[in-house]
């Protein structure tokens, strides 16, 4: 399901399946994008932040056009205890690789990987980032 912001329109509530992973896409070239994500975060139930939320930052290929400080994004990731992935969606190779990563994360968050929960995965991601 793709949406431009949260909350999701209520008229489709009965049609929606269970949500296993929320990916917030931030375009590093647009401050509006970050503001929109920050505003939408307020509508997410706290239980999602145990490994079912991820931030995807795109547009990192164009260094000259960055409008958002990378620090601001890392702080966001820390504040919400969620991993931050950086990518460049305009490049096909990177796009495919990112999609595969997200798919793997989704499998874990949906409980399809035995012995591995969303929470343990997010802790794994966080620890390896700090190293």
């Amino acid at each position, binding site marked *: *399901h*793709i*949406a*431009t912001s949260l909350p*999701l*329109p209520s008229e*489709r509530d009965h049609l929606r399946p269970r949500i296993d992973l929320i990916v917030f896409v931030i375009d590093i070239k647009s401050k509006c994008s970050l503001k929109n994500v920050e505003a939408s975060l307020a509508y997410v139930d706290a239980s999602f932040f145990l490994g079912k939320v991820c931030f995807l930052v795109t547009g990192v290929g164009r260094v000259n056009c960055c409008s958002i400080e990378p620090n601001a994004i890392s702080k966001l990731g820390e504040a919400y205890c969620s991993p931050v992935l950086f990518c460049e969606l305009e490049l096909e190779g990177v796009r495919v690789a990112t999609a595969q990563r997200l798919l793997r994360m989704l499998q874990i968050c949906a409980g399809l990987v035995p012995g591995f929960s969303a929470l343990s995965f997010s802790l794994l991601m966080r620890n390896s980032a700090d190293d």
Partner: protein
Amino acid sequence: MDETVAEYIRRTVLKIPRDEIKMMLQKWGFLSEAQLQTLNFHQIKDNISQEVVQLCEENAADIKQAAVLDIIYNHTYQNKRMWSVYQMRKTGEELEYFDLTDFKKKFKRRLQSALKNVTITFREYEDDAIWIRVAWGTPYRQPNQYKPSYVVYHSQTPYVFISASVLKSNLPLLCQALIVASNYHDIREMELRSHSLNSLKDIVFKRYSQNFHTYCPKPPQARAVEPGSVDLRIINENRSEKERIQRLNQEAFGDGPQPILQFAQYKLETMFKSSPEMDVLDKKEPFRCLVKFSSPHLLESLKSLAPAGMADAPLSPLLTCIPQKARNYFRIREKKGFFPESFVSP
């Protein structure tokens, strides 16, 4: 043959891309087919142009023929120039029969009586367009062939498209000659400029697809399918919002291709409005500001702003009124009186 003419022909040929030279010389028709056969079009352009000048020498070309070649070049590459639109007005409603010979005679006579040294060339095209090339001189100097003005006139309309040379001082004389020759009363410059001559014609002749508000809603089959969203596994949560934007966009811009404009310029002469505590401009003068939008295809990019999520729909009418108002240069002043809103000056 005059040296200046030879040099002018040589330089004109040099401007033409190598693959197009043969076709343009054929259109020109000054060199015979036999002469064209002797030319080697596979050498460097420098040599080609020298050979062309040689042949023109044999045929004793003068400036008049050289000017025709120049018109042909500029007609083919008309989008390299910047065109302005002028509108002529008649006093009465009499529909006079347009006589081309009469027009040419009067135009020439008017210009030549004011300025002895001018080169005037006419060429008619199938779409009723009359192309006029004018090279300007002074009473003491020969016309400067490298900075001519071009005029495109469709005799059945009151519109004239002018690509003036840098010498702007000749513009009033040119306008005067046009109204005298075409039996109009006066002429005014419209605030409409673009590189694309055809788009300017589309706008003033109302040939672009305008959106007419109908009361019957379009049947679902007629709606264009968005490319790339055929995958049924992707569910768009904001579909109704997307459709609203699409509908508003279609109302504002219509369905067909947009005329090609490169700029929209808004000159603001409005008061700066700030909160009273800030007291930024204590003189209360109009805040002079110029906003310019530029793009290789301005209207198409404006049309894609809302669907791309970069602007809210509906777009400001100041942007969407450009083809209907036939202008892309605006002056925005304060509305005087009780309601201090800005309005667009005529």
